[in-house]
């Protein structure tokens, strides 16, 4: 992994890789969508079970992107690595989008299933906080004019957020044992019929590969952008 830390080697390595990822994502999405709509409706949940196939992958990748952001921020801060910083920045928007999708589709799943658009249990609240964190991260980067300073400050925030999220989850969980929320809120993963595994796993893989494609493409774009800015600066000096 550290061999890739040289921007040039990274570009050479990911050059042929990215189109493969995009193609794989497209195929997986197509297959997954087909499977999701041809699988029979659930005995209890009816057709709403199909929402699970876009909801859970979105939530998983929202969290995964966050982990990518946090780990990249760590490397950016400790090793002062430009590539790590680019990776952190590149993960933010896709991560926020996936998290927002998780919240939105979750609401749509929750209403017909459990009769409520929203509930303040540990899981939902911490996903909402995750979304707010993404917003704060992007706001912080955007608000500081000096790019390097903004990047470093954002890296610190990325790390702090990584620690805070388990604390939020724990504290709201603790809070909820006070209020004893209904136990029906564990979406039927425990009792899931195996006939739903193929569409679920395919969509999960599709989302994962799509995120990888989005992330790598964004990192490559960021590397090029920085190179352009450097060249422009040099040109301005030489002019």
């Amino acid at each position, binding site marked *: 992994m550290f061999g890739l830390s040289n921007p040039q080697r990274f570009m050479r390595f990911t050059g042929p890789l990215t189109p493969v990822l995009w193609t794989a994502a497209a195929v997986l999405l197509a297959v997954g969508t087909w499977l999701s709509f041809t699988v029979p409706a659930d005995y209890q949940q009816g057709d709403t079970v199909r929402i699970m196939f876009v909801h859970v992958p979105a939530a998983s990748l929202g969290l995964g992107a966050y982990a990518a952001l946090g780990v990249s921020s760590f490397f950016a*801060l400790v090793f002062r690595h430009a590539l790590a910083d680019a990776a952190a920045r590149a993960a933010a928007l896709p991560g926020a989008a996936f998290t927002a999708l998780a919240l939105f589709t979750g609401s749509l799943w929750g209403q017909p299933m459990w009769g409520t658009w929203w509930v303040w249990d540990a899981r939902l609240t911490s996903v909402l*906080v995750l979304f707010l964190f993404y917003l704060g991260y992007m706001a912080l980067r955007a*608000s500081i004019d*000096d790019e390097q300073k903004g990047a470093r400050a954002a890296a*610190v925030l990325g790390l702090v957020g990584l620690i*805070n999220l388990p*604390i939020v989850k724990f504290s*709201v969980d603790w809070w909820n044992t*006070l209020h004893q929320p209904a136990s029906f809120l564990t979406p039927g993963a425990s009792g899931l019929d195996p006939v739903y595994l193929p569409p679920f796993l395919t969509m999960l893989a599709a989302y994962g590969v799509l995120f990888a494609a989005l992330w790598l493409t964004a990192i490559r774009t960021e590397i090029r952008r920085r190179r352009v800015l450097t060249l422009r600066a040099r040109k301005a000096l030489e002019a």
Partner: protein
Amino acid sequence: MSRPVDAEPRPPGLRGATRVLLERELDLAWSGGGGPLLACGFFACLTAVLPLAAGGDPRTLSPVAGGIAWLALALASLLSLERLFERDLEDGALDLLAIGHLPLESVVLIKALAQWIAVGLPLALTAPVAALALGLPVSLAPLAALSALIGGAGFALTGALGAALALGAKRGGLLIAVVVLPLFIPPVVFGAGALERAASGQSPAPALAFLTAYVLFAGVIAAFAGAAAVRNAQG
């Protein structure tokens, strides 16, 4: 006039330096247009407006009195955070602090401490009054004060971290709020939870314990991350 070069005054030492900085911070906090009064005033306004938004019925308000009071406490704690480091950055005092006797981590902690004393303490005294106004049972007032006191330390520390991160950014006040509010959630939950538990007859001790743990945790993180953020902002 000649003087031997080594007849300089003795450097103050860490304890002295701490005291000096703390006094300076408290001075600044209290002098600029009544800092604590402003925070308490804001708290009072929130306390007045929130019930109006919720319909004013004591039956709906009373169960959430503790929670609303804690929300108002969190928001009022956000006040004056923006200026915590910015003033010193602007007039160069921050650079002096950075190269001074005290490590930057201590500087961050001392500023947070001053924030707690100047803003958190008055709020902790106002919090029970506000909660009572919202319908909290009178017997819980001391608990409200105690939890607000501890929670206020958490808000001051996390707020200082947010202020350090947002140094030099545009629209600093709003940015600090956006960055810091997700971090405020655990103390709000624990603090309001303590009041809830006590209201239903259980012991608030676990909640207060978690709240204290959060404060200690926040202290460590704010010191190191805040110092890193300040160094970053200085360039």
